[in-house]
């Protein structure tokens, strides 16, 4: 059992080692002390930001809970005496309070990614099955056809992988345009890491926006067209980076997008 659970410190050490190796390869020589300091400072800064987001979201949640509750109370107690206009205004305020609630929830989710997690042996095909089950309504509704290559077993956090695959699948279904979505998940081993991709036949992304879409709250469409908080891909990026991987996208407008991401092999288990 003990070799199945890898402590967070172990993993962080491995990530640090991998990052150093990447830097060494990129720089063409071993890392200087200065580079090591910069890498450590960067990691610390990322964790501090996550911590700040966590505290801020908790503090924001309380007043918002009271706003939502009092809007509800207003609705319950005065629904029969209020004018249609008043009812409409209450509805708009309630909708927006709810939207803010989901934004705060996703911020909290984001801040949790760096926190203590359990790493274990995870069959990625089981993760995909789990996602398909979670998304079954959306899949049925959109008549999506989803296929996958043989997927590896990795030492990762199960919840990270569910979030990663599910967010990408959900996006591929959501931004499918008029055609029923056709989605394929691919995987290929490349030396000491795995390359994954998810190809769809959706509306595609303009080349100008290929990097922007990973920015928090960045949205390319109005919430009326495509509802969402604009944090899904930021979550994916944060997860992949936690493992020392990278994520990017290639796309042809109106033909489809392919998201690529890498995950290092931390433990090879036969």
């Amino acid at each position, binding site marked *: 059992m003990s070799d199945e659970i890898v402590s967070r410190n172990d993993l962080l050490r491995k990530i640090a080692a991998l990052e150093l190796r990447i830097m060494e390869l990129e720089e063409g020589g071993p890392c200087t002390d200065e580079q090591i300091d910069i890498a450590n400072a960067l990691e610390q800064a990322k964790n501090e930001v996550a911590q700040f987001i966590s505290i801020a979201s908790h503090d924001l949640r309380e007043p918002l809970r009271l706003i939502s*509750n009092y809007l509800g109370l207003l609705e*319950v107690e005065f629904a029969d005496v209020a004018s249609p206009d008043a009812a409409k205004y209450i509805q708009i305020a309630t909708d927006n309070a*709810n939207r803010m609630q989901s934004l705060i929830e996703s911020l909290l989710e984001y801040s949790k990614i760096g926190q203590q997690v359990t790493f274990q042996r995870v069959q990625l095909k089981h993760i995909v099955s789990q996602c398909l089950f979670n998304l079954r309504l959306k899949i049925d509704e959109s008549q999506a056809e989803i296929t996958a290559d043989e997927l590896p077993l990795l030492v990762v956090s199960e919840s990270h992988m569910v979030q990663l695959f599910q967010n990408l699948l959900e996006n591929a279904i959501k931004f499918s345009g008029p055609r029923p979505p056709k989605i394929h998940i691919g995987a290929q081993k490349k030396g000491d890491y795995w390359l994954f991709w998810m190809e769809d036949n959706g509306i595609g992304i303009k080349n100008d926006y290929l990097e922007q879409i990973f920015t928090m709250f960045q949205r390319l469409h109005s919430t009326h067209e495509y509802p969402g908080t604009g944090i899904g891909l930021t979550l994916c990026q944060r997860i992949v980076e936690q493992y020392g991987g990278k994520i990017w996208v290639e796309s042809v407008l109106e033909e489809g997008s392919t998201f690529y991401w890498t995950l290092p092999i931390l433990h090879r288990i036969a």
Partner: protein
Amino acid sequence: MTTLVSSFNILLVENSNEDILLIRKAFEHTQREPTLTVVKDGENALDYLYKRGAYTDDDTIRPDIIILDLNLPKISGLEVLRTIKTDIELKMIPVIILSVSNSPNDILACYQHQANCYLVKPRDFTQFMDLIQHFDEFWNGTARLPIQS
């Protein structure tokens, strides 16, 4: 003069006026409105239960059940819970935690200190009414509580 009360007596230990009003309003929508006594911090909660400090007169009713928030000034909710559950006289009163916290650590700590139930304050008023409705149906209907001596 003792007030004759046959209804269900709840001691609500809650610091936030906004939440007190929400809880009152939600109880108004239940079948049998209970008698709600409110104290706003942990010290007052214990004074009330031990009939001391500001609560030495006969009007002090021993509650059938306690709804306890965790985030309280002076003495924390967890400390109030611990005191109640280690007191031979008070420990049979069911204590229901009603907190904003959904943290597994808080939930665990409360059950470790013998909380009878842990509830999270809902995010909207419909859910709030549902929660209080369930609370009332269960603790004031289904459950049998100890008869007070």
